[in-house]
């Protein structure tokens, strides 16, 4: 057999043997959902169905952010068996901001700094026990000072 065929077969063998797999398999980034321009499309892209409002999703965020470049958001889900949490910032150009999937060793909790283009509702959805739940909080964004 010619050398090209041989090297192709060797490559295929190595791939199957797991030798050329990436060092770390990370959850594949959902391009469609993150590229969606509306919250509804983003959630559809993630397969998040209709959700029920729940007080068991606690969102701690500032009511007024002096600057939209860093808005700290702290999320705790008190729903039993929370599998994942999704963060959507409704008025951002691409509303889907983050999705966190929790394995056995993690509590359904996350704190993250986000960018907000303007005052908006921050919506959090959680999947627990096969169902979806949601909560939201309004954050007003201002521009402080002289801009310096």
């Amino acid at each position: 057999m010619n050398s090209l065929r041989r090297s192709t077969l060797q490559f295929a063998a190595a791939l199957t043997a797991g030798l050329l797999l990436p060092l770390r398999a990370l959850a594949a980034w959902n391009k469609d959902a993150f590229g969606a321009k509306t919250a509804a499309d983003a959630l559809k892209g993630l397969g998040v169905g209709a959700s029920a409002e729940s007080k068991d999703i606690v969102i701690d965020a500032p009511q007024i952010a002096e600057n939209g470049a860093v808005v700290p958001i702290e999320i705790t889900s008190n729903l039993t068996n929370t599998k994942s949490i999704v963060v959507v910032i409704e008025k951002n150009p691409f509303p889907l901001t983050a999705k966190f999937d929790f394995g056995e060793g993690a509590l359904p909790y996350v704190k993250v700094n986000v960018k907000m283009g303007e005052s908006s509702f921050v919506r959090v959805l959680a999947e627990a026990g096969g169902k979806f739940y949601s909560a939201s909080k309004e954050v007003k964004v201002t521009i402080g000072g002289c801009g310096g």
Partner: protein
Amino acid sequence: MAEPMKIRAVQKGDVTDVRVLMVHPMETGQRKDTSGNIVPTHFIQEVSVRLNGKSVLEGQISQAVSRNPVFSFRLKGAKVGDKIDIAWLDSKGERSQSDAVIA
């Protein structure tokens, strides 16, 4: 070679508080540089947290996460001395991985 992360993992009773600071521009593709040219998008897309080699949290994030991201997570069932490692992959295919021991 991506900048290393700063991870702090502290055991508090049954819960491990993990805080990670990452160095990354998280460019949205909407910012202009001083010459007036658009700075192209470049941001972390995937984050993975492992405890003693086993995945406990997987995150997908957008360019709307702030520059130099700071995340806090909480783990359960871990103890002092256990190993946490955190990896990220960005939109340009660049990677970074750092680890820390729970204190």
